[in-house]
């Protein structure tokens, strides 16, 4: 399983903070994003950043491991 986390405006549009995606061999970050964007297009309209296991990831071709924690996030507004 891959744990997918959502926060703030993205969580609000999805209606939940976490969901579990089934792990598939050779799945990449972009594949997961594409699958979720299809299910939650309005939420993914505002997704600007992704993180894997708490680290910013810009390379969307990153392969995901089983048990990964992935977050898709809107632009930050702290400070």
């Amino acid at each position, binding site marked *: 399983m891959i744990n997918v*986390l959502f*926060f*703030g*405006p993205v*969580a*609000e549009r999805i209606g939940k903070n976490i969901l579990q995606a089934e792990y598939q061999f050779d799945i990449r970050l972009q594949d997961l994003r594409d699958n979720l964007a299809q299910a939650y297009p309005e939420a993914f309209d505002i997704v600007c*950043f992704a*993180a894997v296991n*708490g*680290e*910013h990831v810009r390379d969307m071709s990153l392969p995901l491991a089983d048990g990964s924690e992935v*977050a898709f*996030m*809107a*632009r*930050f*507004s*702290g*400070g």
Partner: protein
Amino acid sequence: MADAVRIQTEDFSQDAEISALKQSSKRMGGVGTFLGCARDFSEGREVSEIRFDSYGSMALSEMQKLRSEAIEKFSLLDARIVHRIGTVRGGDNIVFIAAGAEHRAAALEACRWIIDELKQRVPIWKKEITPQGDAWLASHP
């Protein structure tokens, strides 16, 4: 002494943070600080309160990296970053940054750099609660 980098719901004391910063070195000749506060008016609307959401573990880790990078980049003697989450009202403190260096230029430049980077890199979001409705904020420049 409290950790140099923290995310917390409760308010913080600027005096306590500066005092802790100064205790790290007596070579410190300049301390630059930034205090971010909640406004009660934004984009033409009264704001009743601001609520924060965060990716807590990542936000703390990114703030710790920011502190380390700032110390290295500006040759600081020490730096502290505290960010509140939860709910705040107009006039309340949100974020405090203190940077200590041998001379003022590095302390002031580091402080500016840390808050600018924090806004770009730290996963925290704020939502304004207004009589007209609630709205998640886009970041301000």
